[in-house]
């Protein structure tokens, strides 16, 4: 269980902002933090890892105090044993993939974990290459493996997949899920992708202006809002085109492309890339068994 009660004045682009966090995170859950940029998402991860010092409050992990202004406790990042995946991957350019992983070993640690992670992340062929020669998805896998070398209890992922294309993203989501389960981690993930949050997270925290605006399961927060329809999916708008008097909206739902007819009033304010929900109440879908 992670108990967070922290305050920190941040100097954001829009001016002063008070980051005010009051959260409890169960051991073994995967929590997504969602919110507009500048809401304090990355700062939250930096505070948890000890890279940024809060002004006041307390932070405890499994009943160990990591930070407490009253008792003047503040563990250094070196003492917290947190796995952190940076937005820019932060791979060391002077080291090969294997050296990057080996650098994360603690002094007396058994090297066998390196081989285990290399196999799991399928890095075997890349291990003697320098980061500069890797693709985005490959760098991401190396960074993820490196964050796990020290066997952390907590894994922090700062928008790990935003720079990758859809296919690689989906593959990496599976990696994240499998390591989360295998090592029984408590994972905190920053994501802008509602589909991704649905797939990965047990719980979503919506941050707005440094405050927790909403908390709950992804379904509660993103779907059970107003419509009580029985047939509904979330997806992303890929295209909007006009055909005679109506509009045809192409929506990507999971890996399926769906075309939906919409009126001009419905597409108002809708643009390509928006997250939408496709729902219907007035008809019964028919279920076939596929041979």
């Amino acid at each position: 269980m992670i108990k967070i009660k922290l305050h920190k004045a941040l100097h954001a682009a829009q001016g002063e902002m008070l980051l005010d966090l009051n959260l409890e995170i169960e051991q073994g859950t995967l929590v997504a933090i969602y919110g507009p940029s500048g809401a304090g998402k990355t700062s939250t991860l930096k505070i948890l890892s000890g890279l940024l010092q809060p002004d006041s409050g307390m932070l405890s992990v499994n009943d160990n105090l990591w930070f407490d202004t009253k008792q003047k406790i503040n563990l250094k990042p070196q003492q917290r044993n947190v796995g952190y995946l940076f937005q820019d991957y932060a791979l060391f350019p002077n080291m090969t993939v294997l050296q990057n992983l080996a650098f994360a070993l603690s002094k007396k640690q058994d090297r066998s974990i390196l081989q285990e992670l290399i196999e799991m992340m399928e890095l075997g062929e890349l291990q003697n290459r320098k980061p500069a020669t890797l693709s985005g998805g490959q760098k991401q896998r190396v960074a993820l493996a490196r964050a796990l070398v020290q066997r952390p209890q907590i894994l922090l992922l700062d928008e790990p997949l935003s720079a990758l294309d859809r296919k690689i993203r989906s593959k990496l989501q599976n990696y994240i899920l499998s390591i989360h389960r295998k090592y029984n981690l408590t994972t905190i993930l920053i994501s802008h992708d509602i589909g991704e949050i649905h797939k990965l997270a047990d719980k979503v925290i919506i941050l707005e202006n440094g405050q927790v605006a909403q908390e709950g399961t992804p379904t509660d927060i993103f779907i059970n809002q107003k419509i009580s329809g029985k047939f509904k999916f979330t997806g992303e708008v890929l295209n909007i085109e006009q055909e005679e008097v109506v509009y045809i909206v192409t929506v990507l739902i999971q890996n399926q492309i769906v075309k939906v007819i919409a009126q001009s009033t419905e597409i108002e304010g809708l643009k390509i890339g928006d997250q939408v929900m496709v729902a219907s109440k007035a008809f019964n879908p028919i279920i076939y068994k596929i041979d």
Partner: protein
Amino acid sequence: MNWEPLILTFKLALVTTTILLVLSIPLAYWLAYTKSRLKPVVETLVSMPLVLPPTVLGFYFLIAFSPNNAFGNWLNEWLGIKLVFSFVGLVIVSIIYSLPFMVHPIQSGLSSIPLSLKEAAYVMGKSRYSTLVNVLLPNIKPSILTGIVLAFAHTVGEFGVVLMIGGNIPGQTKVASIAIYDEVESLNYAAANFYSAVLFVTSFCILLLVYLINGGHLKRFWK
């Protein structure tokens, strides 16, 4: 031909550059990452030799180190060190004179490294020292090389400051730049030409090597 002034010049430059490298890494590290209010003051002090005439620096050193004054006298009596008109004095003044040429490249190299590299190493449990040696310095090799070469070359090219504090003692303080001046004064152009040509060619070669290495032109030979 008398090689002594040339050997002395390169000895001075070598000693100065080595000490400067050791001093500049912690100083540049502090300047690159500190949030202290003292930073602009320290930065100004480090950069002063860039704008001051070398004679100003030399003059104040001459005053400070002179055995006729309290500080120089104390050094002389208690430590037996005479800094005026001696090689040790030249080394000290050269370190200060060439300080910005070593500190600035290393500082800008460190500042250009993404902060996340340092943070990643900390989160892995690595100390500041281990992070500096294993992560930061290996990734700013071109900056360190630039610093070494600029400091070395600048020390070789010193004139005013040496003239003020070193004088013209053969084997002690008579470096090549002084020797050239000296030979021209006595209309001995052949000797002046010899020293000048050696300095010219060496400087050209050193700088060329730096541009070749930092530009990646030599990579194909050792890959």
